[in-house]
């Protein structure tokens, strides 16, 4: 584990008796003494605090001083409408490759004179090099290794964070604000990766543990590990990069078409112009042969990523694969997602998964499995 990196909260994790595992090149807490199930439920019922400092925080600053130049530069790498994103707002997006595959998924925000992008930890060095290679003519890029990232998630996240910063109550889902706290600037967004209301808070590294302690001192807040983060996002129907989306899946196959705004689609004001646009736009017009769907195993057996899917109980032809799955503590039964042939992707279609040599029935299900509780 010697070459693994540590987040600014590393010592706090050890103090809280976390079980640490390697993740995205970092030594990260997979669970705390509460355990994955109770951590999951606590986040759905109250508020969970997550250390997501392994993720990459990138600032894209236009050399011209005009934010529209940064927006257009980023639009050359992602199929999203960046130009229309208003100051103080955030969107979900993805970097694509020339084959229309997904290099990474990300959140991007308009912070007035620059864009702020949060990318996955395992991809951040590649992402940064990719952005540097393509848009450094017009933009200054900076990866903020000097900041930690915390997520406070759950129905009582607002109650907890407003005790420290009352103004965050006024933020709507996907709003971003800069808020002073104890002499430093926090970069706060009302967003997350659990399907719950909550905030993601970028904080200077040397203030991160103090902020975490201020939140953990509250009755509503418990520290939550990566184990519960995974079961929460899975119930929330949210993709995990590397499992559910990767360079071999396009946004259309991944059922992320909603994230491609009209301006970038065929007939839009700025149609195409991102890597793999020809493939992605033709898939939007002509359809795809496979699609990401929610999958509900009918029995009690959890089905993990890699489990093959078949149209019936004795066919030899595989028609899909589960890409993420496990037990959903909130729904009280196994949940999964994966890719299936489009003609078998209608809701309530029964398919069969092969698990330990047995064919077990599963049903195509709507995502998310748990209703999203965002503050609109």
């Amino acid at each position, binding site marked *: 584990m010697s070459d693994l990196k540590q987040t600014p909260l590393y010592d706090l994790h050890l103090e809280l008796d976390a079980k640490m595992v390697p993740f995205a090149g970092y030594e990260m807490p997979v669970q705390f003494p509460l*355990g994955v199930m109770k951590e*999951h439920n606590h986040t759905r019922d109250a508020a969970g605090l997550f250390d997501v400092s392994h993720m990459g925080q990138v600032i894209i600053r236009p050399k011209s001083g005009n934010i529209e130049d940064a927006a257009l530069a980023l639009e050359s790498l992602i199929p999203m409408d960046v130009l229309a994103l208003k100051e103080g707002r955030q969107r979900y997006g993805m970097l694509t490759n020339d084959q229309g595959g997904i290099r990474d998924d990300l959140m991007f925000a308009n912070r007035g004179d620059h864009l702020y992008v949060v990318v996955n930890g395992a991809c951040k060095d590649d992402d940064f090099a990719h952005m540097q290679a393509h848009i450094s003519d017009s933009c200054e890029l900076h990866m903020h290794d000097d900041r930690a990232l915390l997520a406070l998630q759950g129905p009582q996240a607002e109650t907890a964070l407003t005790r420290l910063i009352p103004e965050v109550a006024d933020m709507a889902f996907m709003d971003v604000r800069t808020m002073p706290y104890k002499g430093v600037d926090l970069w706060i967004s009302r967003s997350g990766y659990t399907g719950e209301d909550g905030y993601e808070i970028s904080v200077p590294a040397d203030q991160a543990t103090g902020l975490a302690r201020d939140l953990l001192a509250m009755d509503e807040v418990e520290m939550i590990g990566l184990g519960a983060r995974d079961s929460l996002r899975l119930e929330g129907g949210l993709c995990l990069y590397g499992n559910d989306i990767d360079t071999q899946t396009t946004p259309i196959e991944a059922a992320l078409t909603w994230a491609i705004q009209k301006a970038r689609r065929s007939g839009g004001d700025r149609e195409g112009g991102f890597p793999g646009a020809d493939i992605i736009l033709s898939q939007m017009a002509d359809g795809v042969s496979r699609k990401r769907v929610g999958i509900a195993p009918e029995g009690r057996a959890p089905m*993990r990523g890699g489990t093959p899917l078949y149209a019936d109980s004795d066919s030899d032809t595989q028609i899909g694969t589960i890409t993420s799955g496990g037990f959903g503590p909130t729904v009280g039964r*196994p949940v999964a997602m994966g890719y299936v042939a489009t003609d078998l992707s209608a809701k309530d279609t029964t398919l069969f998964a092969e698990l330990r040599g047995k064919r077990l029935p599963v049903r195509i299900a709507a995502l998310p499995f748990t209703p999203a509780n965002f503050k609109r």
Partner: protein
Amino acid sequence: MKFTEEHEWLLAEDDIVIVGITKHAADALGELVFVELPEVGAEVTKDEDIVVIESVKAASDIMAPIDGEIVEVNEELLENPTLVNEDPLGKAWFFKMKPDNMADLDDLMDEAAYNALIA
């Protein structure tokens, strides 16, 4: 009670052996959400995977600790997997088996040796 390095306990009652997992193992796994048991009547071989247990985190297997025949399984675990976390050494036994050779138990650890293993 005897113990294996795979964190199973074995309790002999006449010519039958009751098998479960230790508290140490149950604590390490976390809350169980799924248990799959062997068929009654199955002839099993030492180190053969015969039980599947899953926590929220991951799936694991439990191996047959010795050669023998499965004579009874604890079906309550199918409906209530968390019983394994609540009472691993008692109500949450997994299966009962009739060993081919009762003397196989002599090769296993006693409680003191097991406690030394997990210390």
